[in-house]
């Protein structure tokens, strides 16, 4: 690819983009809680939130007011510093991860004629950075559970460790095969690889399925929501949290759901390339929205697994599959 008019990366541009990403994703993540409640309700033939605003749309604001005005309780025997910092780790890493994922195709702002590459920073190890940041986000639940001097919290953080050890291998190995095909770790290269050809999911269906499964574990969503499963461990790592700190965990979780959606769309589902008559920005929004919906859908339909089942699944089934997939991909690439 010849470098023609590479746009200047100005500090101001990056700051504006960072603020925009923070604001928009935080808003969407908050709105996601509303969507989740509505979708789950519809799937159980209920109405969901209805009373605050038209169709309950303002429920979000009511919840926000409630979270902001709740008393901030730090348990007596908790390690206060770690207890206070842990939610910030989850929220911050979730947003940092979003810095390196491209959401829209590059575009030019009309009238002022400014060319904007929509990714905040196209670092050459983008995919590693994002996965690493999301993995680092699990320090939030881990530290929170251990700092709060509560047995449910301890169980929650033990499960965090289990989950972390299980899925992280699968995520890395499953995404290795597409990386081998593209030969780069940058999301932009991934997107460009699929511009003309088929979507990556056609070449790598196994890797796609494995990545989706690991993504559910990574975002702590229902088949693998071991960390805070109410029926078993009260609220796991979040047992002693209330108010805004608890809200930060949730914002982090929903931001991670969006990140996984973006990564899956860009790496496997054709990214922000135009498709038929649909422009790229519409396609990627549709794909992210569908993956978000899929996570809620799965939550409504499937039961969750036990921790030992998760380890069994990840180490004995998914990891061998991922390794075989990588080997086969390598052999095919050598021969072709």
């Amino acid at each position, binding site marked *: 690819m010849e470098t023609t008019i590479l746009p200047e990366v100005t500090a101001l541009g990056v700051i504006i983009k960072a603020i925009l990403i923070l604001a928009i994703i935080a808003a969407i993540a908050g709105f996601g809680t509303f969507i989740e409640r509505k*979708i789950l309700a*519809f*799937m*159980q*033939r*209920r*109405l969901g939130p*209805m009373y605050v605003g038209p169709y309950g749309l303002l429920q979000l604001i009511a919840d926000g007011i409630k979270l902001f005005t709740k008393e901030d309780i730090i348990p007596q025997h908790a390690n206060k510093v770690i207890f206070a910092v842990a939610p910030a780790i989850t929220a911050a890493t979730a947003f940092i991860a979003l810095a390196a994922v491209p959401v829209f195709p590059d575009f030019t702002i009309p009238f002022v004629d400014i060319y904007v590459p929509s990714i905040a920073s196209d670092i050459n190890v983008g995919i590693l950075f994002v996965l690493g940041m999301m993995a680092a986000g699990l320090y939030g639940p881990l530290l929170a559970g251990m700092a709060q001097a509560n047995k449910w919290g301890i169980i929650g953080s033990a499960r965090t460790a289990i989950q972390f050890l299980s899925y992280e291998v699968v995520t890395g190995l499953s995404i290795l095969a597409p990386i081998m095909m593209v030969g780069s770790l940058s999301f932009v290269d991934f997107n460009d690889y699929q511009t003309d050809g088929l979507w990556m999911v056609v070449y790598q269906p196994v890797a796609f399925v494995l990545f989706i499964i690991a993504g559910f574990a990574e975002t702590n969503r229902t088949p693998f929501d071991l960390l805070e499963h109410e029926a078993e461990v009260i609220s796991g790592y979040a047992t002693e949290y209330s108010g805004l700190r608890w809200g930060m965990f949730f914002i982090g979780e929903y931001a991670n759901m969006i990140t996984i959606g973006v990564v899956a769309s860009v790496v496997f589902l054709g990214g922000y390339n135009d498709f038929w008559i649909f422009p790229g920005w519409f396609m990627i929004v549709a794909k992210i929205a569908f993956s978000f919906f899929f996570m809620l*859908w*799965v939550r*409504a*339909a*499937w039961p969750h697994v036990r921790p030992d089942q998760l380890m069994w699944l990840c180490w004995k*089934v998914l990891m061998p599959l991922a390794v075989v997939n990588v080997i086969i991909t390598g052999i095919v690439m050598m021969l072709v």
Partner: protein
Amino acid sequence: MSLEQFKNRNVGTQNYKKLDLSHSPSSGWGEFKQVVSRTFKPELFVGLWVTLREMGNALLGGKMHTTQYPFEKLPISPRYRAIHEMLRLMESGNYRCIGCGLCEKICISNCISMETRYDENQRKEVSKYTINFGRCIFCGYCAEVCPELAIVHGQRYETASEQRASFSLFEDMLTPIDKLNLQQEYQGFGAISPNADDNIKKTPLAY
């Protein structure tokens, strides 16, 4: 009769159907086969389909279950014994109570108190009538004993209030004169609920 016979409860002829429960695999190869068959069985997708279908049913097929309670109410059974109502005569609009005092007498928790006097036509008139709902157990004896069908149990089951006096005065229980045409006759203790037909389900006669 020996104890053995006594303990045998399998009287009559049973025709149980054993569920076709598969045995858990014993060998490693069997476990592997089980994993493979479970992996490729579409059961998980059946679950996804069911939830999606129900979502369609709810949104498009009008099968939403929710009753938005304070705004929508389900009909309650006419047998339900809620806050009392004093009915009026349809023709004259006068209250039906003749001041006989039977309800006061029969009330087992002694919570009805009433005073009567003669009015200018030498007709008995109720000058004071209250029910202390802090003591009423809603047994329904007062309604049963009333010879005039004057006191009945109404449908007001939402009895949260700042003070119980808001239900218990004669004027509160009496049908408002302008709502006289809406006054419902008491169906009686054996009455079925208005939506009873909808609630009937087919059940097998033989078990």
